[in-house]
């Protein structure tokens, strides 16, 4: 799609020495993170620790002030074309679903396919239908987002992102705004994606889910990566004091 040269075996995401400030507040401090292809990473940590900001930097919803972020071989700079190239290949799911309320579920799913990918409408609808079936709500295609439950809306949001054939998926607390009864259906959807080998970065507080799905768990506090480890090590044998404290509060 883009004219940017890509190293064939480049990591999916590569962050080195990334720093970011909101005004005087130092949100991200010297972040170094390599995400391999097909790797599934769960990011957790107390609120305000910079988890969301971290993944929002990957598709440049936030810009970083120093350091390097390379996504699928394309470095993120202020060059608008590099941003568009990255965004088209990185899907994102938000805490608040963020569906377009004036469009039907089907239109939500086909909009970017038609206008960004340039697919003909019929093809875009076929792709959308396939993915709506995958998230198990094809029957809702002609409804508007407000007519759906939170869990259904979030599944549409996942389908909408998948319609663009992303290479990487970012999930920003995908279940935090959901009623308890609906969390499972969304997590199941994400889990099935994980089983298909999608590269994913997930910010979540669902520790049971993290344990099952993640290849690696990253714990953040005060804008830094405090600890990163395989799930069983992370939960059974946390090393950093702050991690232990966090886990003791969050786990029963």
């Amino acid at each position, binding site marked *: 799609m883009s004219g940017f040269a890509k190293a064939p075996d480049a990591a999916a995401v590569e962050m080195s020495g990334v720093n970011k400030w909101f005004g005087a507040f130092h949100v991200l401090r010297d972040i170094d993170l390599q995400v391999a292809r097909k790797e599934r990473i769960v990011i957790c940590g107390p609120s305000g620790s910079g988890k969301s900001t971290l993944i929002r930097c990957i598709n440049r919803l936030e810009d970083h002030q120093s350091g390097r972020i390379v996504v699928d071989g394309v470095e993120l700079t202020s060059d608008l074309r590099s941003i568009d190239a990255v965004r088209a290949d*990185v899907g994102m799911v938000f805490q608040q679903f963020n569906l377009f309320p004036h469009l039907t579920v089907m239109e939500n799913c086909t909009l970017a396919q038609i206008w960004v990918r340039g697919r003909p409408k019929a093809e875009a609808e076929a792709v959308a239908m396939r993915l709506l079936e995958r998230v198990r709500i094809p029957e809702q295609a002609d409804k508007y987002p407000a007519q759906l439950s939170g869990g259904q809306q979030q599944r549409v949001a996942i389908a909408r992102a998948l319609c663009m054939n992303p290479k990487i998926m970012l999930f920003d607390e995908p279940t935090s705004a959901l009623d308890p009864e609906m969390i499972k259906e969304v997590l199941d959807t994400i889990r099935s994606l994980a089983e298909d080998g999608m590269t994913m970065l997930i910010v979540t507080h669902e520790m049971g889910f993290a344990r099952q799905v993640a290849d690696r768990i990253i714990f953040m506090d005060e804008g830094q990566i405090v600890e990163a480890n395989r799930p069983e090590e992370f939960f059974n044998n946390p090393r950093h004091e702050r991690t232990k404290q966090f886990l003791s509060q969050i786990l029963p």
Partner: protein
Amino acid sequence: MSAAFVRAETLPPQPAPFATGGLGGWFARRLLATPGDVAMTIVGFAAFVLIVVPLLRFLVLDAVWSGESRDDCIKASGACWPFVAAKFNQFVYGFYPYDELWRPNLVFALGLLLLVPLMIPAAPFKRLNAILFFGVYPIVGFVLLTGGNLDFQRFFIGRFVRISDYVDVGNWRGFRGSFWLDFAATAVVLTAAIAIVARMFRTRFVTSLKAMLVVFGALALLLAPADADFGLRWVESREWGGLLVTLVVAITGIVASLPIGIALALGRRSNMRLVRWVSIAFIEFWRGVPLITVLFFATYMLPLFLPGGASIERLVRALIGVALFAGAYMAEVVRGGLQAIPKHQYESAAALGLGYWRTMGLVVLPQALTSVIPGIVNNFIGLFKDTTLVQIVAILDLLGQIRAAFADPNWAAPTTLYTGFAFAGGIYFIFCFAMSRYALFLERRAGAGALRIEGAMR
């Protein structure tokens, strides 16, 4: 006895209790419940009698319905309707030549034919219909009303070189060869120049060629019909008047104000400082001066500033003034709508790779404009009535034409004046009320939309 409770069956829903009914009950409850209510009912009833009864007497009961001249109306205390009937053509067309009245009539008919299906949501061919109404109809209307055949002399190069000295390409059906040669040459030169410059900024050659082709193609499509000779007599805008002028000014203003307003509103919220400042300056300038000043300036002072010989038609000057003025007001209404769109909508559009224009056009504006329909229509209605200010620059719109008719000694009767104003008020009311009702219909239709938006923002 046990403390646990388990519901065995779901309770059936019951109908709501009936309110105490009857007409007498309604009166007692709604109008005469408290001493305050009684007082207000009396005041309201008195106001109704004081206003409606004299109005009815003037407009209907005491009115004169037929007659030839002032003699029939001179003794009446009611409206002098024969005056309106006698002057009706003047009120509608001004002094448009009688033999050519089919032209404005055709313009009215075409407008209605295109507008009505455009306003009915279920009508098919919306896109074609919109192109016809917003793209083709103004040109057709212009040619029909003025007669077209503008006989363009020079485009751009011709301002520096007398092309006809070098080549003689003759004329054909009102097209002057030297003008269109000039146009083609300018198009080629400018396209090449821009394509070369754009190449330096890494824009592909074909892209800029296409863009310029579109620009000049559109310009040619705009100019050609106005230049062609359709054998229609030229009717100067000085001869137009009445409702025709009111509608031309109002519709031009309404149709132009929305795109101008959207552009300014987006500009005002732009991240680019220069764009933002220019938009703010523009909006504040036009909002800061009265429309009368704008019209005065456009009519009497603008010609002084234009280079010698260049002149823009009088009505066109007024139209431009009205459009820019209305656009600045519209910009603030649209901006209100834009501000109501939550940030996460921009973010999710950005995350899908939709760029600025697609985010605005496909995601933000459809929601923003729907939410400010009442404000937009409010502006339209205000504009429709403000058009009557063109009288100040000697353009006779509906009201101007009616006032001009008062001077006719043949109809000088005591009630002529009131009759004319009542008629004008009635016409304005019909148009404005229609707009208001249509807006209400649109809002109701989008009402589900409002609910949708709330739902998605939970």
